[in-house]
């Protein structure tokens, strides 16, 4: 097909005519959609402010520098809370994610048509909703504070961890499981000897990976009142204390960098 006869000669083309037209059409529709979106955004924007943006940015920058270094003495407790939210949240979520993953994996689920879809529903719904939204919800339910943050992080992480874990379970080497089954082991023994050792490295990797992400997320949970360093950020923003804001942002940046370094190290050691 891609070879076209014209003027007695053969011309090679990568695609034939309909394919070419189709591709052009797709690009055209794509561009139109994008332009429409841009138009909508543009309509909803007060362009006067945007043209003024460089001046405002400059203004904020001069106010925010230098950071108010002595404010760091008040950040000890919020940093501790942030760490706890991430760590405890990750631990709780793992406790729930492990059984959910086993129920969701095709090769370990007790029932393909009832329990597996249910487990997948848990995974997709906890995963689709950002931890800040979970935090909002939990604050409405159990009041503001660190506890709401821990629970929000825990719920948000269930779906993430369970998804990666059930994919790891589906990829295990079945012959090892078969061998353990052939010794006359019970269902639980097959689990403990045949499946768990195979997914343990993946599990450790997922746990550390998620902990790293949770450190990031827990630094901003305070913006909606769920404890941690974000609370300080919110109150500083409210009173436009820019030197404090810049210091907090630096601390958050540092925390993110450190947690990423730790997680990379630990994952490197496991694999």
């Amino acid at each position, binding site marked *: 097909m891609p070879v076209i006869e014209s003027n007695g000669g053969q011309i090679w083309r990568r695609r034939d005519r309909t394919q070419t037209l189709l591709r052009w059409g797709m690009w055209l529709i794509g561009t139109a959609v994008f332009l429409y979106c841009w138009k909508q955004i543009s309509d909803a924007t007060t362009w006067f402010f945007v043209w003024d943006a460089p001046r405002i940015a400059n203004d904020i920058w001069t106010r925010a520098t230098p950071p108010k270094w002595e404010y760091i003495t008040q950040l000890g407790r919020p940093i501790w809370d942030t760490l706890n939210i991430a760590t405890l949240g990750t631990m709780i979520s793992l406790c729930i994610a492990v059984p959910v993953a086993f129920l969701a994996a095709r090769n370990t689920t007790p029932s393909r048509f009832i329990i597996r879809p249910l487990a997948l529903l848990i995974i997709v719904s906890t995963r689709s909703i*950002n931890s800040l939204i979970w935090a909002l919800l939990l604050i409405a*339910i159990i009041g503001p504070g660190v*506890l709401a943050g821990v629970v929000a992080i825990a719920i948000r992480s269930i779906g993430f961890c369970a998804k990666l874990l059930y994919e790891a379970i589906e990829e295990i080497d079945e012959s090892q499981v078969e061998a353990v089954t052939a010794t006359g082991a019970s269902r639980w023994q097959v689990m403990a000897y045949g499946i768990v050792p195979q997914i343990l490295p993946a599990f450790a990797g997922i746990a550390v990976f998620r902990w790293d992400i949770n450190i990031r997320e827990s630094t901003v949970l305070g913006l909606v009142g769920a404890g941690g360093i974000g609370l300080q950020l919110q109150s500083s923003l409210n009173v436009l204390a820019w030197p404090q804001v810049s210091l907090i942002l630096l601390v958050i940046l540092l925390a993110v960098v450190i947690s990423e370094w730790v997680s990379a190290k630990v994952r490197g050691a496991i694999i």
Partner: protein
Amino acid sequence: MSAAHPAHRELDDMLGRRWRKPHLIARPWLRWTLGIGLAVYLVAAFLTIPVDWHRVYEGLDRGWQFVLAFTTPDFVTRFADIREGMIESIIMTVAASVVGIAISIPIGLGAARNIAPLPVYMICRGIVAVSRALQEIIVAILLVAIFGFGPLAGFFTLSFATIGFLSKLLAEDIESMDRVQAEAIRASGASWMQWINYGVQPQVMPRLIGLSMYRLDINFRESAILGLVGAGGIGATLNTAFDRYEYDTAAAILIIIIVIVMGLEYLSGLIRGRVQ
């Protein structure tokens, strides 16, 4: 058979002795220090979480109401708000994904050590690092302060976040590609652009498409929270619903988000299946 004799002595030593699985951490002091350290940390962490049990107990009732709200979601009462917020979220997602992906391709090429010269590599890696270290919501706060309220700030936020995510993964993919195929194209005397087009692009394209779909999914989820800080989208509506304890409206919004995310995941599964 000469080795048989010492081996049997070894066996005699071992018979009757208890067998324990070797510990994961061989040095006992390190094992105990880590174990006790972990226990102390956990106790300290639990003790420093202030919990108002009375408030929690009262909250359980509200929590249950929220769960019940999922069985009777209210799409109607605030229909106009929900529709407007959702459309704004989707528009921001689409526009930001397109721009973000378009920018991350050159940056991803520049951040791959095997095809970019060192100065370019350093600059691109720097951009990636900054973008990854700053979370969406913080960027959004700053951009709202600079550009004012509205979806433009959200659009910039999501584009910026997309660049960090996609460029890094694209660069890693290019770095781990098959060298031989790329070398073969280079050996044919191709220019740099031709080399990228024929030697690199075919190898990384499927993954780039998969990652782009995944990022679209993430951008949509993130767009749902940008409204909390005034950067447009459904977040503002959701926040209002929570503030007014309108759980049935909140449930409706959450259900819409979940359904759209599921749809996007299904779609990206289809597309990834086709390109691979």
